[in-house]
Structure formats: structure tokens, C-alpha cells
């Protein structure tokens, strides 16, 4: 495996650098471990993180560059801004 290029996105205004090709869902898991943000709050306010990983469960829906998208089916890009629940 070659050394991967990194990209830097903003999650809740905080920069996060990840390997190119990383999904926003994987980035959210990294962000959660650093207490930057996770995916969403449920209707009763529970913390939810990426769950099915394959575009089915909708738990990882977040605002990416101003549009509601599934984090697990979106790749991180340089300069991308993600708004997630905290």
C-alpha cells in the first residue's frame, strides 16, 4: 500500500485531516473520538453514530457543504464543511 494523500475537511468548524478516499462517516467516527461531533441526535435526543455503513439506515445523515447527505456514501474532500450534531 502506498502512503495515502491526506485531505482536510472542517467538521463543526474544526479541521480534520484524513487519508484521501476516507468517507465522511469514517471521519465522523474520528471526530467523535476527539469530541468534535458525531452524526446526529435522535428525536429523543440520543447520540447516534454511523451504523449500517452502506446507505440504508440514514443514521449518518449530516449537512455536507450545506446539503443533507449520507456521510457513509460521501468521500471527504479538501475544504469540505460538515455540520454534525455534538
Amino acid at each position, binding site marked *: 500500500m502506498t502512503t495515502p494523500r491526506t485531505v482536510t475537511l472542517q467538521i463543526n468548524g474544526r479541521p480534520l485531516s484524513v487519508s484521501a*478516499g476516507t468517507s465522511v462517516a469514517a471521519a465522523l467516527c474520528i471526530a467523535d473520538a476527539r469530541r468534535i461531533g458525531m452524526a446526529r441526535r435522535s428525536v429523543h435526543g440520543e447520540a447516534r453514530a454511523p451504523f449500517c455503513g452502506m446507505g440504508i439506515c440514514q443514521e449518518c445523515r449530516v449537512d455536507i457543504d450545506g446539503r443533507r447527505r449520507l456521510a457513509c456514501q460521501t468521500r471527504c474532500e479538501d475544504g469540505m464543511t460538515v455540520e454534525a450534531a455534538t
Partner: protein
Amino acid sequence: MNIKDPSMAVEHCDVLIIGAGPAGMAAALAAAPSGASIVIVDDNPAPGGQIWRDGPHAGLPAAATQRRSAIGRCANIRLVSGARVVAAPQPFELLLEDAERGWRVTWKKLILCTGARELLLPFPGWTLPGVTGAGGLQALIKSGLPVAGERIVIAGSGPLLLAAAATATKAGGRVVRIAEQASLKAVAGFAAQLARWPGKAAQSLGLFNAAYRTGSHILSAQGESRLASVRLRRGAAGAEDIACDRLACGFGLVPNTELGQHLGCALVMRHGTAALAVDAAQATSVPNIYAAGEATGVGGSDRALIQGAIAGHAAAGATAQADALRPQLARWEAFAATLHHSFALAGPLRQLAAPGTLVCRCEDVAHSALAPHKDWATAKLHTRCGMGACQGRVCGAATQFLFGWTPNAPRPPLSPVRVATLAALAPSIPTSDATHGT
């Protein structure tokens, strides 16, 4: 592209394939020599489906990379990644949406290769961050989730548990337990039969994984704001608690039939689960619509490749070539039957959820709120179960297993959609106001 245009962009093709997993890729490559114009639409950023998912930690097999290259060399195949089917506004037409726009595609032949999803069953603690599907964890790791040094428990049923364990181990995770609900006798019987399908034998190596236990299933996941430990059933009455950072839990696969159902395609019960019904040429009950791969019944990628090729040939009118492939299918159908028989879900799994356990994760509907209802429609009406963003794709399959309910056929839009895209469904309405909202 101006999404305000009420006429919206329309793309035309001869063969439209939904899904770029093994079945969809094989279908495209089989149809391509006919010279037909082919469009493949897939909702992931790269082709491959779930089994050949690309990503920074994926490591694709040659079977995947060769097909990707071959598709790239075919000038008459257009691959559209990152796009979803929203609706079927009229016959021979689908409405699609990607991150930027919505557009319509007209087709003469349609091949549904929509794959399968995991059966995710509710148990206490399953909504905690740190809990994912088994295939879900595998997908997240391939997509760049770092798990090095993490303690990982994998639970549920089927060979996917071993595949997820292998992916997690390769990424530096410590798989501390693999809990397979099927009995040792059932799993050993499956392993003994694997010699019938060369190439599948490698999967049985996981049986020698020191962390592997049969006859064991998840009881609960514990943690304050995220997962800290799991409790597993061992034997008839025993239990063990294991501290861990992640739990990956999947109970087999469910065919993705929603688009086919929306188009009017008949279903058939296969191995206890509803699947799209197809004939010997992979044709569904609706003229000019074919289906291939896991959507027609879960049976693995080898079966999907053959079915996809049959469907591609048939859609392109090459019936002789489609017929010639047919005999190869029988052995993989036999593999599927053995798989389902060996990993049939045990009755106690129906009692995993406690009264307070959420069954519908989208609308936070607890088991106790659902249990009094007699069917899916009544439960949905009274509790909003299945009315959230996933549109019942998770809780519908779960309640089918838990209560024996049959979810209704899906209604459009088939996935959450932007207003601007929906405007295409009503072209007579001025759309200049319909560009807001997500």
C-alpha cells in the same frame, strides 16, 4: 446544469442497470458487446457494491479491478456513481438524484442489481455509538475508519462475521470475540460441505480463530454515551461480559426489493425472505425489467456474477449466451441453500429486545409500543414506526423477524430527496420556488 428548468435534463439509454456490485458489473459487461448504450447507476462513490467496496483500506481483489477496468474501456457504458433512484415518474423512466442535481433517465431494458442489506435486529443498547452492523463495520473500515488497537466484538450470524473479523484484524483491531448464534453442529456441517465450492473454503479458516464461539448471541450492549461492554449468551443459560470499544452485529442479509416492488415486480419467498421473482432469463414479472444478484435472493457474489451476466445477455437480446450460462447457476443456488440452512436464526433471537428497546431508530419507537399491534400498517399508523428517514428499511425487516409483519410496498420518493429534484415529478408546477430545502 440548471435544476430550475422544469423540463429537467433527460438522459436516454438502451439498458439501464441499477447497482454496480458484482451483478451490475457483470450485466453491463455482458450487454456491452451488443453495442447498446448502457448506463449503470450506483449510490456509492465507487463501483463494487458492498463486497468489492473501494476505499483507502479496501485492497480490491483482481476479480473486481479487472471488471472495473473492463467497464472503463467500454465506450458504450456510462457509470454514474453517487446517485440514487428517487422515483419512477412514468413507464420506461427513472428519476435520479446525486449531490448536485436531479435528472431523468429513460430506458428500454432495466436491470435491477440492488443487492442486499444487513438484517439488523434490536437489542438493549444497539443504538449506542460504537455499535454497528457487521458488514457495516467492514464497510466503515474499508472507508477509512481507524480501528488499530481497538477491542472489537463481532456477533450475529453467517460467514459475514468472519469476513468482518478478517477486515478488522487486518486494520489492526483486536477481535476479542466472534459470537455466532448458530450451533457448532450447524457450522461444522457448513464447513464440511465447503469443499463442494472451491474458493469458498478459505472462509472456513475463520473457524480456527481462537475468538470464535458458536451457539452464542448478543444479549445487550452497555455504555454511558458510547459502547463500553457487551453481554453475550453462552450455551443455554450462561452469559459473559466483555469490555470492548466496538460491537459489530449482523444477522444475515435481506434482499433490497424496494425499487423492484415500486416498479410492480412480483416477490417470491426465498430462504424465508422476500426477494424479487425472476425466470430463467432473470426477467421479473414486469416486461423489460430484469433482476440479478442478491435482490433475487441472498446467495453470494459468484451467483450474482452469473445472474448478472445472464441478465445482461438477455436484455441485449443474446438469448443463446444467456441460456449457456444457466447451468453454472445451480451449484451456487445449492451453496445459498446450504448457507441459509446452516445459519438459520434461532428462536431466542426474537426475544432480544426489552420493552424499552427502540425498534425504529428513526422515530425512536420502543418495542413495547409496537407489540400490541397486529400488523405493520396498524403499528405504523399509531406509532410512526417505519415513517422516518430510512423508510422502514431497518425496522421493517426487524419487525418481520420479531412479529412476522409484512412491510408495505414503498412509496416514492424511495429515499430522502431535495425539493428541486421532486419538482420533476410535477413539471406543470412552476419550479422557481422549489430550489430551497434539502
